[in-house]
């Protein structure tokens, strides 16, 4: 188990280094750089050269990468090329804002997803199952921006009860109304994913021999469910939650941009648009670290829950 965890952590670090390298390399092939983004393409060659020197863009991409990566290993992500502020505090603050959104989404979607998924799975083919399946399929079939626009239309445009934009300066909790639509938008899809995974796990577990045996022993349906189904069915839900964190962070880039919420997702989009490579690399690196760590934790929990996996 310890060896397995160590291997996974090593792989995680290697993945992160590769992610950063890929970002630096890919962005070096883009037709415009931060200097052109800052000055416009009609800037004089002298101005462009000066700004490129100022920003270190005159260095080869590998030199820039090693310089940045060395600093990142020491916790110093450098200075944003465009915002001209320290990247570390900027990214961490935005991450904190996004953590509030993500935390609320998971707080709602995980328990609710587990309960509704089990409920649907335990009534496979029944009316409840069909309704839940249809609703979750619908929720999952539309991308976040569609739900966001729909929510804005209904709750801001028609009813006028919620703000269409979620711009904040202090704590996200200063004005909770601004959190409602971003959280709701991301929750719709993540909740649907969790329900479907949980339902699937429940249906599969209910078909296993030992469940049939437990029923034949005369145990009540509730006891069968509580003692023999829940523990096994929850494993895929845990895995799904790990995967959902990745999905959720991707969703946040869309949701935060639409609602103008200052989080890590919208910051990443802005960094990409501005060709702000160090900021982009730091934002993506941290996001990747969260995703891979969430998957690692989910895998370790699943291994922990399953004695056979633990032994192997």
């Amino acid at each position, binding site marked *: 188990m310890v060896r397995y965890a160590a291997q996974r952590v090593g792989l995680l670090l290697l993945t992160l280094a590769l992610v950063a390298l890929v970002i630096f390399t890919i962005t070096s092939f883009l037709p415009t750089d931060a200097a052109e983004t800052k000055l*416009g393409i009609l*800037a004089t060659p002298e101005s462009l050269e000066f700004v490129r020197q100022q920003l270190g863009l005159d260095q080869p991409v590998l030199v820039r990468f090693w310089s940045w990566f060395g600093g990142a290993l020491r916790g110093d992500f450098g200075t944003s090329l465009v*915002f001209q502020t320290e990247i570390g505090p900027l990214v*961490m603050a935005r991450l904190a804002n996004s953590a509030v959104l993500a935390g609320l989404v998971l707080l709602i979607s995980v328990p609710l997803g587990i309960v509704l998924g089990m409920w649907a799975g335990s009534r496979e083919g029944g009316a409840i199952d069909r309704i839940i399946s249809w609703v979750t399929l619908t929720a999952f079939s539309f991308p976040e921006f569609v739900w966001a626009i729909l929510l804005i239309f209904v709750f801001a445009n028609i009813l006028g009860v919620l703000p269409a934009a979620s711009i904040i*300066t202090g704590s996200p909790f200063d004005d909770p109304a601004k959190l409602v639509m971003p959280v709701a938008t991301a929750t719709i899809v993540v909740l649907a994913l969790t329900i479907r995974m949980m339902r699937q796990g429940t249906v599969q577990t209910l078909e296993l021999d030992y469940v049939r045996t437990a029923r034949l022993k005369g145990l009540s349906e509730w006891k069968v469910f509580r003692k023999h189904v829940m523990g096994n069915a929850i494993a895929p839900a845990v895995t799904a939650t790990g995967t959902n964190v990745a999905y959720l962070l991707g969703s946040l880039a869309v949701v935060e941009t639409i609602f*103008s919420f*200052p989080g890590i997702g*919208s910051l990443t989009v*802005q960094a990409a*648009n501005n060709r702000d490579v160090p900021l982009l690399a730091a934002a993506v690196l941290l996001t990747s670290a969260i995703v891979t760590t969430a998957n690692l934790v989910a895998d370790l929990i699943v291994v922990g829950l399953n004695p056979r996996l633990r032994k192997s």
Partner: protein
Amino acid sequence: MHTTPWMTASRRAAAFGIAGLVAAGTLSGCTSSESDATSASGSGDAEPTVFEMAWSGHPTELDPANMNLLEEYQFGQLVYETLTDFSDDDLAPEPELASEWSVSDDGLVWTFTIIDDAVFHSGKALTADDVVYSIMRLIDPDVPTAHAAYYTAIEEAVAIDDTTVELHLSEPMADLASALAQPYAAIVPEGSTAEELATTPDGTGPYVMDENVEGSMIVYKAFEDYRDQDSITLDEIHQVTIAQAETQSTSLIAGDIDLISQVSAQQLSTLEAADNVALIENPGASFHTIYLNTSFEPLDDERVREALRLVMDREALAAIATGGLATATADNVVLSANPYHADIEVPEQNIEKAKELLAEAGYPDGFEMDIWTTTERFGLSEMTVAYAEMAAQAGITLNVVTKTNSDLGTEGYRQQPMVAFYFTGFPDGDGSISPFYESDGAYNGGGSESPYFSDDELDELITEARSTTDTEARAELYADAQEIIAERGYALVPYEMPLVTATGSDVSGFSGSAMGYYELFNVTVES
């Protein structure tokens, strides 16, 4: 009325003030850049008046000398001041930090008298030394700034005494007073470093930057030591970044914001239908154009260019591209908000004449050519497609190629035969015409490339106007130049577009500006 993005979503070019031809709170608040300056807001018991204005982009460059975006100019307008300012009526230069100015007979020495009651947000009083520092910083060859090319005529700035500054020019520049009204000519404290200006702005403007949530919002508070307190009617201004046009509209209608800086044609119908929204239209703010690259055959033939001009139904293009917002023009790059704009008759579409010219040029069956455009500038691709249909009537096959706005600049400009661009206008004569039509103009090859267009008569007019300080005489010269452009220019300009600003109907005292950024003096919000 500045710049033109063709480079990024809202990036507008640098040289000649054309910002881009080519054109975030925290749990702890630790990303914010905060000013130490004092502000008037919140000093009383009454609820402060907060004005929320939505912009599609966030100011990233806070050093005035390197600003390129309209949203950055808006930041500059609130925090900084310039020697001169554009008048609200006709964009002519008027006093701001300079109470008056004069120019020598040879046009080579300009003398500015600096006001003595302006104070920086840091508390330091403005002196002539700050002005000299700011101007010399603009033209420092060792530390190039984004708009240095606009000020190449300035050789030196000299402080004569605490309130008098002389600018010594290498050649006459009649539009200097207008050039110094540009937001990038803002006056900063002597000795300010680029790093200080980027993070802790210190101007003499009516508002102090209180907080900068990068990428999301800037909070301004009224400057309590501003010399004209009566004109400051807002305690706090929030410049919020809302990228989505629909979200902007919904927020304005819901009363969450007070102003949308640039209303697109797609937002108009929604906003027009709302009974709590006021729309302010300032004509002559921007235009669409089709660049004809004369280094490609057959565009090197004047008859072919004339044929391409004649196939154009300008009124129809204006209607198709902007839903009727735009006004047809005769290829005029000097827009109607410009004091030097000349009214020139708009040519009618004449397909038969176009066919005759093509036959004369040896293309009786027309020709085939690519035309680049983008969907990233509202109406531009619609205009291009419609124009291609019009050209087809004369036998000319234009293959519409859709690219990113950035590609138009990096891969289209100078490299493709026909490219459609979006430009914003410019408030003076020279800045409007010379980049496009002087033989070494920045948008005409930039001096280091073969120009798109070179015309001795136009070059002479541009040079003469530049050294003609008499306003009426200069206006005549620019009118002549506009006639020539309409007759044989290379950049087809079918129409110009207004800048539409939307405010809540409870906002009063706001008049808008074709410049695209606002002073916000004497603006009040009822609710």
